[in-house]
């Protein structure tokens, strides 16, 4: 009967190897091909950097418009999702009745499981509906994509905020109760500041989620060539869409090299975000460890 132990050992070691080798190979490949392309020319092409950043001259063969598009998309998304998401999480953790907790929690849970492409389809349907009713000239645009992304990251925000607050030791609330503080006072002056790093970590995680998502924006207004985003109701470029587009439609070696550079850039950005989130959440759990 030592078979089971043997099988488990083999399974464990081989999956460790397979996962490390698989991911390692993909990432090393990306670095080897992408690192040479990662320089100022990748961003701005032949245009002088400051002229491009100040939007004095258009950038033709660089990814600056896509970077700007992704940044503005992120900004609009977070502006839309931040307040509702965090306050919903705070409400769930501090004030909700068990019934509400169950219902809102289930809603967020279901929505967290929805594939992002379905959310993109939702955006497309929404704009078709609007065109039929109020907005005959409406079209897919930055605002629409941001709305859909905001709905997509809402559950992430809600859950992260709620978990951060619920992970605090219960004695904190008990002591405050005993001292005669009201529930809103406890939440505002005690729980939210104490859970601050965890909440911030959740916000950063949801930013990462919004930044990398391709499926939503490809149905709601991302295009391959739009220049800098001109406004909330215009089409836009975005890094993930640029990568997707390059993989399918590249025409020259330079374009492919730019694609590798872009992919590496997006990867590094995502890793930076998750490392920040992780450091913040670890700091929170360490502070209340004892």
């Amino acid at each position: 009967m030592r078979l089971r132990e043997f099988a488990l050992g083999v399974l464990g070691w081989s999956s460790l190897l397979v996962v490390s080798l698989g991911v390692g190979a993909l990432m090393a490949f990306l670095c080897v091909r992408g690192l040479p392309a990662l320089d100022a020319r990748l961003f701005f092409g032949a245009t002088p950097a400051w002229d491009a950043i100040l939007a004095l001259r258009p950038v033709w063969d660089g990814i600056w418009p896509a970077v700007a598009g992704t940044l503005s998309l992120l900004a609009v998304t977070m502006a839309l999702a931040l307040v509702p998401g965090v306050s919903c999480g705070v409400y769930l953790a501090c004030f909700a009745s068990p019934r509400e907790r169950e219902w809102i929690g289930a809603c967020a849970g279901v929505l967290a499981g929805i594939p992002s492409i379905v959310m993109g389809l939702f955006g497309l349907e929404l704009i078709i509906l609007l065109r039929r009713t109020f907005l005959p000239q409406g079209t897919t645009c930055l605002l629409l994509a941001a709305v859909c992304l905001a709905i997509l990251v809402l559950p992430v925000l809600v859950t992260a905020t709620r978990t951060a607050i619920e992970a605090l030791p219960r004695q904190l609330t008990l002591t405050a109760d005993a001292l005669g503080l009201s529930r809103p006072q406890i939440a505002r002056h005690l729980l939210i500041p104490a859970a601050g790093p965890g909440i911030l970590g959740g916000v950063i995680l949801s930013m990462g989620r919004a930044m990398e998502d391709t499926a939503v924006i490809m149905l709601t207004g991302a295009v391959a060539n739009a220049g800098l985003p001109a406004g909330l109701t215009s089409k836009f470029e975005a890094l993930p869409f640029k990568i997707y587009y390059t993989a399918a439609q590249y025409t020259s070696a330079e374009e492919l090299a730019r694609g590798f550079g872009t992919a590496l850039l997006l990867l590094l950005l995502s890793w930076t975000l998750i490392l920040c989130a992780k450091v913040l959440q670890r700091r929170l759990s360490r502070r209340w460890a004892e």
Partner: protein
Amino acid sequence: MRQDHGRPVLLRALALSVSALLGTVIAFILLSGAEALARGRGLSLFGAVWNPSAGKFGILTMIQASLLLALSSLALGWCLSLGCCCALNGLAPRWAARWLMGLLTLMTAVPTVVYGFAAVFLLVPLIRDGLGGTGFCWLTAGLLVALQGVPTMTFIMDGAVRSLAAETRLTATALGMSPLQHLSRVVLPLAGKGAAPLAGKGAVPLAGKGAAPLASRPLLSAAVLGLGRAVGDALLPTMLAGNAIRFAHSPLDSMRTLTAHISLVLSSDIGGGEHLSLLLAGALLLAFCAAFSLLNLKLGRMCRPAVSEQNAGRSAEADPPEIPGARRLAQGAKS
């Protein structure tokens, strides 16, 4: 404990409107799917034939492709996750476990499109040269979907396995079990059978996409979650699976999943057959994934009535007089 006075009205309104919004989105997609079904009666939307010129818009091939891809990649991914979870919990030496943990954390943050991009230029040529075909096939997409799902599933399993192991380790060691025996004879049977970890406050690792709460049947709930993710992934099948509309018979056949179907059809004929098939595909996906999420919530709730309340009380108490973990050990060993 919960008094009604002093519940901030504004916050409550905001929370309720957020959940109403979420509910509306779900209802909207399901309703437009139902509407598509009603409007597209003559188009045999659930048929096996996709032939726009003959007015046939059947998505059965895509349903088959989605299921095949999801189930095959889940089978591979789940085994890999189980292996990783064992490696993290005592099988591998500490340095290897640390390395794996770091790698998995980084993996949660790798954008899908980056996986897809790297695979198009690395894995696709390998498969094309090694096994024949175009390289854009079920196998390629399946491998990547499996790899992409590993970190989430591993973290779910790891959270529960870690606290179960901590609970029973002392007793198991006292009985002379090796770490591997402890894992295979006690912890994994407990994890598979469904025993909520008593110490629910174990460090839940940071899972990039949706943090993982401690599940009561971690092995099952990891599979359910992984299946939902595998069905719902859009980018990898679109970029890697070839997108031909036909039934796939071998792993080297090209296939088009429901998600790829949605992301590929950019038709402008609103209300036409293609568009209706999109709506139906979206509603099907949503129903699928919502069912999985609900199942998962139910799994999570079965064994932990109001976890936070109980744990708080428990952690303040002294250890119970019985030998810690002995009852658990007996439970596990019986199986």
